[in-house]
Structure formats: C-alpha cells, structure tokens
C-alpha cells in the first residue's frame, strides 16, 4: 500500500502533474474553472450553463481518443472556447461585435466624469468587455482570470503565440482607453 503510494508519487513527480484518468475526474478537477471561464466569457450564467453542457458533452465524446498524457486542462478550455466562438458565429454576433469593437469606445469627456466613482467604472466595464471582439475577449480572460499560458491561448485562438500576446495586450489597452478619466 505504502509502496504503491510512494511509487505513484515518484511517478507523478517525474512526469509533472498526473493526467486525468476518467471523464468524471476531468469534470471534478477542471469542470468548475471551465464553467467559470464560460461565465466570464458570456457574463450570462444561463448562457454559460448551456455552453458548459455543450462543451462537457463534446469532451465526453472525444475523451477516449485523447492521449492520457495530454494537458487535459488546456484541452477542456479549448473545447469550451470553441463552443463559445461557434455559438457567437451561429448567432451572427461576431461581425456586429467586431464592428463595434473597431469603432473607438468613446471616453467620457466632460469634467463630471472625473467625479464618478468606482461604481460607475464597474458598471461600465462589463459592457465594454462584452464589446471586445470574441477572440480578444477570450484571450484576455484566459490570461487574466485563468492564468493560461500564451502557447495555450495561441492554440485556443488558432493563431501564433505572438498574436495571442498582442491580442491580450490590445484588449487591456482598449479597456483602459474606454474608461478614460473614470480611472483617474
């Protein structure tokens, strides 16, 4: 018993974090944060629940074909990210969102804006995040809230690592510009 535990621990230390053995384990271990990722992406719990169900089902169907040594966490995030993007495409929201996002987000101009408190900034930032292009939003959220590496984000977006980094930086810069004096 002890020998087995020690052996397994040594094994784990040698190969990094242990792979996920079963679909149930995948859900136990990574389900909550992947769900949180979708809540963050959609900022709409009901929509997030649907996408999560979708993603979990896709993961379930593909689980058997996945290499046991694969990075299950990143893989599950990728499935969730794709569910989110394909949902946006299906509902024809991508173009509109991209259009909105390329139009400069207007900064508050009058002096009164400077007096607005953090509550106002908080009320504004949500919709601003929603207006970021879906891929940019996803990249920023993956990096900031879920600590995914740029190589993982690159695979999530289907772009180079350099482009992934640029996307995240660009998203942060847009939000900063959008809030203008509210952050002063």
């Amino acid at each position, binding site marked *: 018993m002890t020998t087995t535990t020690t052996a397994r621990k040594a094994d784990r230390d040698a190969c990094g974090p242990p792979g996920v053995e079963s679909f149930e384990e995948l859900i136990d271990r990574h389900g909550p944060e992947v769900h949180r990722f979708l*809540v963050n992406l959609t900022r*709409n719990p009901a929509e997030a629940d649907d996408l999560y169900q979708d993603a979990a089902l896709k993961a379930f169907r593909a689980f058997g074909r996945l290499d046991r040594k694969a990075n299950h966490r990143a893989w599950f995030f990728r499935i969730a990210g794709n569910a989110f993007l394909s949902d946006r495409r299906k509902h024809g929201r991508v173009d509109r969102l991209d259009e909105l996002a390329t139009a400069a987000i207007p900064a508050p101009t009058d002096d009164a804006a400077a007096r607005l408190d953090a509550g106002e900034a908080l009320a504004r930032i949500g919709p601003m995040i929603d207006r970021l292009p879906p891929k940019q939003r996803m990249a920023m959220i993956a*990096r900031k809230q879920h600590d995914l590496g740029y190589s993982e984000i690159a695979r999530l977006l289907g772009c180079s690592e*350099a482009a992934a980094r640029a996307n995240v930086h660009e998203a942060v810069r847009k939000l900063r510009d959008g809030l203008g004096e509210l952050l002063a």
Partner: protein
Amino acid sequence: MNHPGIDPVDRLAARASGPGAHPCDRALAAMPARVLGDLDPGDAAWLLDHVATCRSCGRELEAFMKLDTLVGLALELGEAPAPAVRLPRTRPVAWFARCDSPIGPLLMAASENGLCELTFEGFRGVDEVRDLLAERDFDARPAGPETPAVPSATLVRAAEQLAEYFDHTRTRFDLPLDFQGVTPFTRSVLDATASVPFGRLETYRGIASRIGKPGASRAVGNALGRNPLPVVVPCHRVVATGGGIGGYTGGLAIKERLLSLEGARLA
C-alpha cells in the same frame, strides 16, 4: 535596451521601445504587459524607475492597476457553481429474434436483465416491435453472432419453455424478465396477473382488488393491453366479470386458444 519579452507583432510596443523612443511612450506601451504580469523583470524594474520620476506615467500606471482590479470584479461577479453534466445515457440493447409456435410466429426480445418483449408477429411486425422497444428506451437490435451470452441464453430458454408450454409439458415459466419502461401501475397489474395459476381465471375487478384499487377494473384492462410479455405473464387468464372473455391484444382467437390449451372454462 534589448526586449526579448516583447513581441514583434505588438508593433506599438516594439516601436515605442525602439532606440530613440520617448521614455514615456515606452512606459505606456509596457503597461498592459505589467498589468498582465508578463513584463520581463528588467523591463518591470525600468518601468518602476520611470514612474517614480514621471508623474503622468505614475498616474497612468495607477489607472492600469485600477483597471486590473475592475476587470477582476466585473468578471467574478457572475460566479456560479458549475451545473451537473447531463450525459447521454447509453441505452440497454434488446436483442430480438423470431420463434415459431402453434399460434403463429412470435417475436421475442431479451436484454442483459431478461426477456423484455414477446409479440405475436401476425399482430405486430418487426418495425412495430422495434418502435415499442425504443419507446421503452431500449436499443433494439436483431440477435446474431454478436449477441452476448446472457441475452442469447435468455432467448434460447424462452423459446424452449414456450415450446414446452404449447406441448402441455410446462405450466409455469421460469425466466428472468425485464420490465424497463413499463409504468409502475402497469407493473403492479402485471405482477398480480403473474400469480394467477395455469388453467385458472381471474377477473379485471379481481386484479384491481388484488392491487388495492378495487375501482380500477378498466385501468387494469388497459394495463393488460400493454402487457409486453403475453403468455409468459398470463394476461389471457384475466376475463370480464359477467363471464365474458374480455379483450386481448393480439386477437381474441389467440386468447381462446390459450385458455383451451390450459383447459380453463369461462363461467
């Protein structure tokens, strides 16, 4: 200064950090990376030095740090527990096969749990039986070489016992039965019916009182009409109160045949 951490695609940053760039431009370009925690240590130190001496860049960095907090707050506001994942249930397979009998060809189906369907083929064809099984959430497949041992053995035993029954050498069936997809009421009616012995009769009203629902004779009749295992669960032994033969799914001729085979006499 060399910038291994800054990406060529991030052109603004690259330009701002190039030789001859204004230090404030370079500081501004580095701020998103600072917020995201991916500025390399050398650049981070330089940025801190710069904001210590430049008030406007200091204010801007503060604004970025506030932004960092706000993004965190805006996103984590919507936190909710992950819902349980609903997986598609794998339906149990019902293997079906045909067997001949003196009352015409029978279609039988068996799952791992037991015999789940028996139908007079003259009354319901294969397609209808498949539909019935699908309604009971079975995956209906024709029995063949790939049928596992347990359902296969059940089908063989059922065919043997039916042959013995029609040959007057068997009065009770000894088979595992699978009532998946049968409603609880129908199930209780079938259980009560199963205890009516060979050659004896019971009335719809009698079955209704046996299950503690004396007023439910009509419902009992309807439930027996949905008996998935006629002959084996002897619904043919249940008749009308006034001495009438009642109904039979599969045709009254079969009911009469079965009753005369058992030597049962209507009052």
